[in-house]
């Protein structure tokens, strides 16, 4: 008997299907990026070009535009992003004063004469700077460009496509007030503010000067122009753009910007969801699983349900499981895993994808899942405060006649007749809830460490708000957290 069991354990693992390999390695994105570059540059020798492109390995290098009205904090954001990603910052003043490009002299001449530099000239300067090796390798942050539709089109026709466009906004009054307090460090070009962002270093404090073109009149003029150009730019970069409120503490602005530029946009890559919902009892896992399964046609697998079905169907495994369920003892991991592996390798799960709730409950189970070649590609941890859990679970009732589930506060029974016959599942009695929660909490930290790329869901919200959040995490490729 023991020998037979061992033989089954030693069965060779199935080779992973090509689909899983392609998904894990991001093959679609790899080839798509290469094709994009080929179409932008249309080299005469595509093979040579492709070899160089692959060697460069800059698919994840930042290509960001930071736009916004004057005094919205573009420079601060751009500098911070460049420091974080080790990217190159390109702005009006770096183009005119820091670099020596082919048309720098011409541009400076315009500035001397107090004339507006023509769009074509800016576009050329930007294009030349961005084709420099350091920009290609490290990525770039373009600050304050494009200013208008014409510049945007010119950038596009020279093959410059930002992957993320950050659009800062704030009300005009705030901006005018801010620009009054703006101060510049002539040495580092960093921007500070007399009220909101004062440097701590006294040496820096002494150096600060008021920027040149900053009378209230000038600022209002610039604001008007910005508002005129803004709708066109917004329209052009809609798909890769995010508006971020600049009227908040700069720490918040920066963290929102960072979260945004790390997201990957929705891609056409084929994707089979393999989703894990983990969380305390009563956090809404099964509800969300049902919603996802219904909308996206993935198979909804609830571990507890699976066990009960196996027993009810009298399968071989079911018979082994039955004594445990009957006596109320937890079913041994080995049996559960066997059942799960069988179910998750069925054809419908492999082709449609699946969502699993309630398993694994601890790291050992998680590791065994991994060993069985079952690797989820989206993991969600539901978070719910203790009081909410208690409220949700202790007030659960079931109608023994119809099987309908009710809740004393959130979904009361419609008639007093039904109300009278409602019963409570012993699992939902307070001391049992406490027990289940304690077990959950003792295991959860290790699980959170085990699933590094997991998403955290605030389960204390309206179910449809939660659903939208979960949905967006599933539909978009995983964010790029390399740095």
């Amino acid at each position: 008997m023991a020998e037979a069991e061992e033989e089954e354990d030693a069965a060779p693992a199935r080779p992973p299907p090509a689909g899983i390999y392609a998904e894990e390695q991001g093959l679609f994105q790899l080839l798509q990026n290469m094709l994009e570059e080929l179409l932008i540059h249309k080299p005469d020798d595509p093979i040579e070009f492709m070899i160089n492109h692959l060697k460069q390995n800059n698919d994840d290098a930042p290509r960001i535009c930071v736009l916004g009205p004057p005094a919205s904090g573009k420079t601060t954001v751009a500098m911070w992003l460049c420091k974080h990603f080790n990217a190159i910052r390109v702005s009006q003043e770096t183009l005119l004063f820091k670099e020596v490009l082919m048309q720098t002299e011409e541009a400076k001449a315009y500035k001397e004469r107090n004339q507006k530099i023509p769009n074509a000239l800016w576009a050329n300067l930007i294009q030349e700077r961005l084709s420099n090796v350091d920009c290609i390798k490290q990525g770039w942050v373009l600050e304050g460009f494009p200013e208008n539709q014409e510049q945007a089109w010119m950038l596009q026709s020279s093959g410059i496509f930002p992957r993320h466009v950050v659009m800062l906004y704030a009300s005009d009054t705030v901006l005018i007030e801010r620009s009054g307090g703006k101060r510049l460090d002539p040495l580092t070009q960093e921007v500070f503010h007399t009220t909101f962002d004062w440097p701590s270093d006294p040496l820096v404090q002494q150096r600060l000067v008021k920027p040149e073109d900053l009378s209230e009149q000038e600022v209002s003029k610039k604001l008007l122009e910005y508002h005129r150009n803004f709708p066109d730019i917004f329209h052009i970069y809609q798909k890769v753009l995010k508006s971020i409120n600049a009227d908040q503490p700069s720490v918040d602005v920066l963290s929102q910007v960072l979260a945004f530029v790390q997201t990957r946009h929705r891609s056409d890559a084929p994707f089979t969801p393999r989703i894990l919902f983990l969380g305390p009892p009563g956090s809404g896992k099964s509800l969300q699983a049902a919603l996802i399964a219904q909308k996206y046609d993935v198979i909804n697998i609830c571990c507890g349900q699976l066990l009960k079905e196996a027993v009810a169907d009298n399968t071989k495994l079911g018979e082994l499981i039955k004594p445990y369920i009957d006596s109320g003892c937890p079913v041994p991991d080995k049996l559960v895993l066997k059942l799960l592996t069988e179910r998750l390798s069925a054809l419908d799960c492999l082709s449609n994808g699946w969502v699993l709730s309630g398993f694994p409950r601890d790291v050992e189970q998680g590791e065994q899942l991994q060993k069985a070649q079952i690797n989820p590609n989206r993991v969600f941890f539901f978070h719910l405060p203790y009081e909410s859990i208690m409220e949700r679970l202790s007030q659960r009732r079931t109608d023994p006649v119809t099987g309908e589930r009710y809740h004393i506060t959130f979904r009361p029974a419609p008639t007093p007749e039904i109300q009278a016959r409602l019963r409570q599942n012993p699992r939902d009695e307070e001391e049992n809830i406490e027990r289940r929660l304690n077990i959950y909490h003792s295991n959860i930290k290790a699980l959170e460490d085990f699933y590094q790329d997991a998403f955290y869901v605030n389960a204390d919200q309206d179910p449809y708000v939660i659903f939208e959040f979960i949905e967006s995490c599933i539909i978009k490729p995983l964010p790029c957290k390399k740095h």
Partner: protein
Amino acid sequence: MAAGEAQSREYLRRHRLPELLQRLGALLLFHRPERPREFLIQVLERVRAGRRAEGEFPFLLDEANVDAMFSLLDVLGQGHIRPAQYREALKTLGLSTDDLELADDVKITRRVFKKGMRKKMLESWSVY
């Protein structure tokens, strides 16, 4: 169609890029290398070398595979297959059957099959 799009499609067609990308994809999914980027670089360098006649193109099928293919087609073990089978084999691999002038009763031996296959595979890669 906008001018830019027409230009791009023409570029793709001229350099046969869709076919190339498909082959790269096939090679990746078959070999499933741990580092796909490096693998692709190697494959493309082999294409470049093959183009300069400095090395072999990265064929998906090697000689053993072609042998096996012939054995599969030659069910009765007669040592030869029909031209129709030969054509089908080429079509399955996406190779062209245009310039095949074979009468219907000619017997394709293993040697002829292998030589023909190799020639066709070489041709298909030489456009790059």
